[in-house]
Every structure is written in C-alpha cells, then in structure tokens.
C-alpha cells in the first residue's frame, strides 16, 4: 500500500490545521475506537466559508483527506460546500488505497456536520435530503452508512 505524492504532501504539510475560537460551525465525526476522528471548524461570512480549521486523530490518509477537504471548501459558498463529495476529495488527492476510502467519507461527513451545526445555530432547518439522519456515530462494526468496508 503506497500513498500518492499528493496524499504525502497534505500529510506532511497539512493545510488549515488548527483550532478556531468562536467558530460559526463545528463538526466532529468518527470514533476513537475505529481509529479516526475529524473535527472541522468554520468561520462563515455572508454565506461564504471565510476560514476553516481542522483537527484529526487518525492515519496519514485521515490527515490528508481532512486537509484537502478544508482546502476545497475554503472561500466557497455554503451551498456549494455542501456538495463536496468524498469522491471529489479522493480525486483531488490522486486516489487513495481501497482500505482508506472511508477516510474520505469521514472528511465529507465532517464538513457536513460543521455546516449542520452552523445551520442549527442560525435556526435554519436541516434538509434531510442533504444531511440524512446526521453524521456517522462511529460504530463501524456492522455499520453500512458509508457502504465501504474497512
């Protein structure tokens, strides 16, 4: 199993790494038991993601997908950021090993969870078509929410 040069670059030099005071939206997904937790902080101004930070516990691809996902949504309109798919993150990283695809799913869910938090804080109802029934509870055993093994 080898990582692409892009994955290694984002792992070595993560973009938007850190925490954020007074964030407008915070999302945390994953579970320490499964080995991955991602936390994303958003600063939103005039419906645009003005700043984003992340903290991640996990493997190299978890760190790299968090970094790439934050880079992809920074400066985007909230509604566009909601369209971020795990597939787009994988493509932007020049691919991930099959066993690591779930990291990209987690990155997509972390972005959605942070945006859901922003909506909730602003009294905007969540559209279940976009947000589903919430983020992954992190119970990997027997979970089929991301539809990906391992």
């Amino acid at each position, binding site marked *: 199993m080898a990582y692409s040069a892009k994955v290694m670059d984002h792992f070595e030099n993560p973009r938007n790494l850190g925490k954020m005071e007074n964030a407008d939206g915070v999302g945390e997904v994953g579970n320490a038991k499964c080995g991955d*937790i991602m936390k994303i902080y958003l600063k939103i101004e005039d419906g645009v993601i003005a700043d984003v930070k992340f*903290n*991640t516990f996990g493997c190299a691809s978890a760190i790299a997908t968090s970094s790439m996902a934050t880079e992809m949504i920074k400066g985007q309109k909230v509604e566009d950021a909601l369209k971020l798919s795990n597939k787009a993150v994988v493509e932007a990283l020049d691919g991930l090993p099959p066993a690591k695809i779930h990291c990209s799913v987690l990155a997509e869910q972390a972005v959605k969870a942070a945006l859901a938090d922003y909506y909730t804080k602003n009294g905007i109802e969540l559209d279940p078509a976009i947000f589903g029934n919430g983020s992954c509870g992190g119970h990997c055993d027997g979970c089929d929410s991301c539809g990906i093994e391992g």
Partner: protein
Amino acid sequence: MKTVYADNAATTALCDEALEVMVSCLRDNYGNASSMHHSGQAAAEVVAQAREDIAKCIGADAGEIYFTSGGTESDNWAITNAARLGAKKGKKHIISTTFEHHAVLHTLMKLEKEGFEVTYLDVHEDGYVRVEELEKAIKDETCLVTIMYANNEIGTVQPIEEIGKICKEKGIYFHTDAVQAVGHLPIDVKAQKIDMLSFSAHKFHGPKGIGALYCRKGIPLIGFMQGGAQERNKRPGTTNTPAIAATAAALKKSCAEMDKNIEYVSAMRDRLIDEIIKVIPRTRVNGGRSPRLPGNVSFCFEGIEGESLLLYLDLKGICGSSGSACTSGSLDPSHVLLALGLPHEIAHGSLRLSLSEYNTNDEIDYIIEQLPLVVERLRDMSPVWEKIMKGDN
C-alpha cells in the same frame, strides 16, 4: 537523510558472512545438491555442513533439521503434522495462546473447521502465559501444545522450559514458533524438551525465504507436498544451497556473539524505554519488562494513531512499525495488543521499535530526540488528545 533502522523484528540486514557465502554458492558452487556428479556433491557437502552447524546452535542433531521456506511454512507443517498424529489416536484437542503469529493462529483456525478443538490461553496484561493455566487446560484428548517462544510485537519471552517439562510428563507434543528467538536467545531443544521448533533466517541477519523446522527424532513427520526426495523425503523442491549456507553462517555468528549482543542490545532497549516513558506523558510499555527480547521496544501513546506516527517517524529517517488498525489493513488493531486487554483506542496508538546489534547509541539518542517531537505534533492536532487534556476521557 540518515536511515535509523529500528524494525529488526520485521526483518534484519544480511550480515557480511552470509552474503559472502551466498554469493560464492551462487557463482561457484552452483551444482544441484541432489546430483551425483562432483559439482552436485560439492553443493551437498555445503548443505550437510550447514545442517550440522545449525543443529548445533539449537542443541539438535543434524537429522532433526528440515529446511523450509521460512517460519510460516515451518509453523504450518509442524502444527498440521502433530494434529494428524493426534487425530489418528482420537486426540483432537490443541492448546495455544491468543497472541500467536497468524501463521499459527490461521493454521489452528483451519484445524478447528476440520473438527479440532483449540484452547487459547490468556496472556494476561503483561503478555506471559501462566504455566498453571496450561496445566489446567490439558485434557486426555490434548495432542499438541503450540506456544511461541517470544512474541513478535511485544517481545515477551514465554516460560518455554516449564512448558516443555509439562508436555513431556503428559506425553503431549510441544511446538514453539521461535522465529523471534533463534539467534537472539540461548536455545537448547533437548534441555528445554522442545519437540518441534520453527525459525526463519532473515530474523538473525540471514537471507529471506529460508527457514527450518526442527522435529525431534522419533516423531513421524509427513510431508505436505509431493515431489522429489529432498530433505530425506519429507520436503521436496531443489535444495536452496546458497540460502542454506547463508543461514548457517548468520546463525553461527549470532550464536557466537550472543552474550555480547544481548548485553549491548538490551542496554539500548532499556535506555530507550526509560527515556521515552520519562519524557512522553500518557505512554505505556506493552508487555512485561522482563524476560523480554533484547531488541523489543513497544509503546502505546494515548491520543494518537500509529500509522501517522510511523510515517512521521519515517520522514525523520526512523523505520519502526505499528499494530494500529490502519497498518493492519483492517478495522481492528493488532490481535496481540487486544490480547493484553488494551482498549481499541489505546491500541491504535502503538509503536514497535526493534533493535539489533547493528544499531548504535547515537541512533538511540536520535530516536529519543525525535520521537517526543513527533508524538507532540500529532497530539497537537488530535481531537482525542484535546479531550484527554480537558479530562473528558
């Protein structure tokens, strides 16, 4: 960037003595050891001498050594053979442990599907089998006890002599996977009453793809492949003269220098462990400190994940390994760490550094300098560590 190779439990560098004899066999002594002509007989002589030398290193007779492709093949062969012998007498119970190598565990799982019953002994928090628990697990139907000599991930050395004694008294075959121990610890199969022992050359500075099974004289050994008459009709396939000669060269050297190596390597091990647990908070050492393989260092660092730790260390030139789920390619961290009763979230943050006599004290200094920085970097970005620091965890 300098490479600090601290993954000697995975494999070791070939020693010069092994390399030289290997090259000379490949270049000059290339005959087939089964051929009648002088070229073949020259190769056969090299193999006979190597067999003698290897046998002497573990207290066996040359006729009890069977060359194989390595530890996995030896484990599969020994266990399957003993199970067949047991089944013939209606004895279909085997005793092992929860933290064996997969070459043993998966062979046992296969036998379970074929109707054998396997008792897996607990290795407790410290990574040692309890002899009284072995005694309690023995039944009239027990045909085999297979317990590793020393664990590959956490380095704990098992009470082999006591296990051998119990098995001998009860008339049960005793096999040990000694892949991590041969060439590193003194072994005497006769004194320790070991019936079968597996080892692999590349763990003691020999070449890869070669190992052996020691099988005590008197135990019927049935081959599992069909072919030629090599290895006294037990293991067909053209004799791997270069690798066999190199195995003997490496093992002779390791055994001749064993006392010196044990002293030197275990001093580096202890210094590394002592310094790291002093400097990095919320660190645990996996497995008891003694008896432990001279080169094995195994930690769990709370709040971080092992694969990213491994790769950040690699960027500093340090080669180690981890039992985290991400490096095992599954959702679960290493079965060895779970066998110690560690929760998943702790086991994910594991790191194994395995040293050899090729390492230097300067390299240990470098690891002691770099490892805390890497752990700190990962903890700084970890939401799990943030919670631990806030006291929510």
